């Protein structure tokens, strides 16, 4: 693909110089947005109970009680969409909103919405991320909504079933509820996927409803055992889509009453009929996205490759432009519409109880937008909209959407690479960058067709998936790798945790007394890791079955490839591709722990005077949080190999070998596990803020990390340990693409990674071509070494320290957590500390600037 209206370099240059002030509407919307996030002028995030009330009312209705669950669910979604209040809070060009509030946190009682129950009276005034809730709405939740759902959440449905079956998976549930072993996302959400919007834009909903009606009639006349279930499913699809139409019609009527003629005309056409302009396409897509959030939680529901999906409609408009002036007007209008869409996507946030702030504080709803890269035919896919979307991202510099840039080193033009660098430097954090070559190869390794793999988009934080075809449920498992290390050192237990009836937690363990070699220690560690993987998978599958049986997603199924053909809901395996994601916390900490153990074992081996068992020495040191073992700790910190560092002290590639061993082990373990929809699990390494939360309650580790310190983020080397920037990049790159032997390449991280890099900002970075070039070169060098993804926070220690001390001075300072972007002020203290202590690299010297050398600096 090539540039169209932006083909002349002068046009691109002019676009690069556009400022927010030149778009009065976007400027106004930004001011209103900042009022909300900074809680100015009486504004702030509000809890929206509208969805919870209407869905509950529908589910309580006796006349719906006998319907199959898929139809009951569709009716509930339809009732909500049809009866929503219609609001136009500002002069955004797009109609529709996720909630009834300017920025709302919707309540999903069927998932984890009830976790705010104890806080209903305090949520408006709590110190951490308050969300306004009126007394009347709080009482409605307390008396009308929550009581209905007490035994009907997906988690409690699962618990009931497992208890009735006396299932072994009850142990997994117990472990999950201890939080620090693993967390199964299925208890809270499925979402985490990229829908398929092309059909509704091309054909309109009415045609899609016709198709579902035809399929229902065909299924009704069939004699197969699943004919009735299929007919019900097709019926549910129709009911769901009628809900979207009702909502759009209500919006249109209100727009008409208010004299908003353009909006009325847009809504007269879409989403019922095919889109015939860029404006219509954007609004149709947005309305369908809103509808999807009516059914499933607003967490990482990702719109996908918007520069590709919307481009045909931009071209329709462009073809009508004959003069320079009309072309310029279209560029301006498209930029404005994209900005409006960005604000719409950011119109909601998660409902997070204060008690969960430790783990998830500061998270938005993480809708990922993907731009650039190549198309299905392996051609350059960068187009006008790619640049316009990057420009909107620069101009608005807001947390959501989570913008991701795909980069194909051979196919994408150099100016695109420069735009990516400039956007990151302007926003100091956005977008994250993905290596097309490695991501596509990783997906092909998962039996995805090459053309489909080329059309990948990012889900939520960093997870690549084929657009609209893979139901990837990328948050199925978040496993704490340090739990396996704890259990290895403690004979299958994890003091001080105790599980009634399970002592040890894992009855299969190798006692350290009997271990003589590091290889034997690895075998002991593997036993514990395998146990935790088994447990987490068994519960993820149980939750998957509950989703299928109790919380099907007929509306989301309308916007996917597969369900219409197969007559099966997404949760029942209806998508073209099915998989589940398993991500991991504490990767680098565990690698460095393995390194330290191997290093110590080697030292003891070489020293004939020592007859102690080094593994037991390490266990004792860790058990005492290195009290009385400080000398050993200092030796570990100074001499043991570190993941992400150059080899030293004659230990060769110990660190990289151990990292590769762990990556390969996890890949092999998960790839042999089937999920509830017949797909496999894909390992990943992103952590959101969990590495900070879990670190706060974690015991010491053999790596020399003391208790209650944050873990490393994503796949990033431990903070302050990797001093050479290129070595860090090469270490991570060498894990994403494993070259075992000549001709044998393996891509063992198909679920995605988050590599968090922090660069020292340079005064007037954007005006310094050497800085921009250096920035670009490092990305391309890392990608050449096999790197899959990288994201940046361009801030120094001093600024972040000051922002922690004086949050009021930095209300909209954006940082990269481990996946998504967040406002620094919204993060909990542990996460702020992790960002502050995260290694900061000098881009010119390509070396880490150590924290203790720079305390108090400020730029």
């Amino acid at each position: 693909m090539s540039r169209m209206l932006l083909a002349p370099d002068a046009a691109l240059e002019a676009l690069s110089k556009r400022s927010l002030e030149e778009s009065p509407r976007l400027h106004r919307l930004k001011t209103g947005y900042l009022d909300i996030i900074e809680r100015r002028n009486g504004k702030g995030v509000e809890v929206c109970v509208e969805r919870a009330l209407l869905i509950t009312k529908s589910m309580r209705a006796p006349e719906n009680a006998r319907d199959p669950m898929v139809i009951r669910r569709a009716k509930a979604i339809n009732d909500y969409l049809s009866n929503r209040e219609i609001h136009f809070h500002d002069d955004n060009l797009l109609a529709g909103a996720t909630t009834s509030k300017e920025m709302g946190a919707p309540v999903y009682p069927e998932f984890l919405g009830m976790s705010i129950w104890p806080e209903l009276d305090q949520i408006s005034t709590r110190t951490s991320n308050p969300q306004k809730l009126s007394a009347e709405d709080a009482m409605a939740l307390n008396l009308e909504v929550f009581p209905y759902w007490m035994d009907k959440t997906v988690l409690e449905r699962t618990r009931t079933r497992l208890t009735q079956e006396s299932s072994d998976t009850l142990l997994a549930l117990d472990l999950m509820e201890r939080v620090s072993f693993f967390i199964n996302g299925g208890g809270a959400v499925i979402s985490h996927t990229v829908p398929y919007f092309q059909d509704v834009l091309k054909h309109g909903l009415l045609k899609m409803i016709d198709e579902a009606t035809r399929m229902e009639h065909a299924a009704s006349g069939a004699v197969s055992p699943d004919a009735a279930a299929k007919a019900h499913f097709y019926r549910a699809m129709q009911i769901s889509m009628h809900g979207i139409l009702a909502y759009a019609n209500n919006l249109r009527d209100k727009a008409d009453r208010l004299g908003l003629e353009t909006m009325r005309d847009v809504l007269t056409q879409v989403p019922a009929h095919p889109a015939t302009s860029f404006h219509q396409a954007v609004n149709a897509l947005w309305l369908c996205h809103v509808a999807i959030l009516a059914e499933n939680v607003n967490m990482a529901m990702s719109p996908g490759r918007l520069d590709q999906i919307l481009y045909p409609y931009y071209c329709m408009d462009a073809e009508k432009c004959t003069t320079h002036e009309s072309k310029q007007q279209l560029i301006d209008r498209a930029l404005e519409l994209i900005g409006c869409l960005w604000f719409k996507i950011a119109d909601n946030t998660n409902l997070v109880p204060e008690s969960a702030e430790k783990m998830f504080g500061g998270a938005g709803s993480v809708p990922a937008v993907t731009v650039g890269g190549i198309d299905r035919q392996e051609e350059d896919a960068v187009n006008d909209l790619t640049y316009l979307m990057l420009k909107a991202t620069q101009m608005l510099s807001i947390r959501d959407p989570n913008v991701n840039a795909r980069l194909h080193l051979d196919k994408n033009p150099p100016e695109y690479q420069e735009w990516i660098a400039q956007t990151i430097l302007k926003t100091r954090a956005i977008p994250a960058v993905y290596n097309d070559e490695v991501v596509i190869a990783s997906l092909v390794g998962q039996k995805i067709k090459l053309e489909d793999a080329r059309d990948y988009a990012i889900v939520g934080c960093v997870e690549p998936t084929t657009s609209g075809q893979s139901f990837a449920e990328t948050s199925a498992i978040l496993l704490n790798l340090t739990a396996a290390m704890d259990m290895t050192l403690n004979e299958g237990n994890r003091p001080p945790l105790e599980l009634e009836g399970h002592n040890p937690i894992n009855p299969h363990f190798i006692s350290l007394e009997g271990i003589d070699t590091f290889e034997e220690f690895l075998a002991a560690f593997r036993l514990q890791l395998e146990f935790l993987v088994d447990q987490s998978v068994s519960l993820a599958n149980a939750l998957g079955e509950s989703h299928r049986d109790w919380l099907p997603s007929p509306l989301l199924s309308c916007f996917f490839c597969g369900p219409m053909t197969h007559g099966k809901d997404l949760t029942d395996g209806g998508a073209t591709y099915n998989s589940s994601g398993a991500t991991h916390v504490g990767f680098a900490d565990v690698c460095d722990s393995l390194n330290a153990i191997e290093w110590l074992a080697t030292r003891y081996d070489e020293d004939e005077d020592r007859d102690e068992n080094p593994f037991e020495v390490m266990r004792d040191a860790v058990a005492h949080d290195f009290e009385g073992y400080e000398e050993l700790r200092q030796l570990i910190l100074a001499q043991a190999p570190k993941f992400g560092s150059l080899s030293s002290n004659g230990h060769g590639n110990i660190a990289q070998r151990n990292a590769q061993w762990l990556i390969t082990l996890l890949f092999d373990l998960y790839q042999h596990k089937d999920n509830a929809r017949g797909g496999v699990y894909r390992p990943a390494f992103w952590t959101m803020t969990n590495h900070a939360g879990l670190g706060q309650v974690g015991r010491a580790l053999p790596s020399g990390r003391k208790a209650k310190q944050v873990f490393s983020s994503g796949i990033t080397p431990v903070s302050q340990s990797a001093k050479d920037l290129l070595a860090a990049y090469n270490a991570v790159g060498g894990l994403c693409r494993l070259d075992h032997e000549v001709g044998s390449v393996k891509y063992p991280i198909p679920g995605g990674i988050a590599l968090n890099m922090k660069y020292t900002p340079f005064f007037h970075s954007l005006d310094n071509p050497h800085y921009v070039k250096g920035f670009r070169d490092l990305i391309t060098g890392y990608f050449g070494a096999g790197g899959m993804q990288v994201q940046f926070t361009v801030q120094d220690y001093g600024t972040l320290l000051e922002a922690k001390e004086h949050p009021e001075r930095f209300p909209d300072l954006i940082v990269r957590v481990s996946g998504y972007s967040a406002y620094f002020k919204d993060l909990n203290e542990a996460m702020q500390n992790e960002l502050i202590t995260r290694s900061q690299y000098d881009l010119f010297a390509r070396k880490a600037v150590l924290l203790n050398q720079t305390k108090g600096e400020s730029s």
Partner: protein
Amino acid sequence: MTGPTTAVRKVRLGWSVRRLIAQIENELSDDFLILLLDAMRLALAIDPAYHRNIEYGGDVFNATYVFKSKDGGVKVTARFEPVRILLFKRQRLRVRKGAAKTFDVEITFLNAKALWEFLLAEDPDVFAFILDNKLQTQGNLNYVMKFGYMANRLKHLTKLGTATA
């Protein structure tokens, strides 16, 4: 004859105070918890707005909670159940010592001290207690959430002397 030094006296005093606190924590915890639950029972009985938490519209709240400590110091059962008064059924809270064998949710504290910390905290954080291994639950977590709300409302009630629910 010489008496103990000041330092020894201080150590002994400190030891005695700690022992006293431990005794109070261990021996009074049952009663203290029952006292709090009794306050909830009373509020449910006399305050119609608060009573709505267990009887509203067509919903009645039937549930059994067991509170225990791992060291055995605490064993209390709280049961929300219907009671017939003349011709009328009405929900009430019944509290008794001992742990019921069947329950909707069992809340186990590490020890009586953890229970004290939890009950006396201005804003008890269930999640933090779970992470610190001071509290574990068995059964439906939503019942814990509901109880948390009712306990918070009770605190509010006792502070303000009035209630909305």
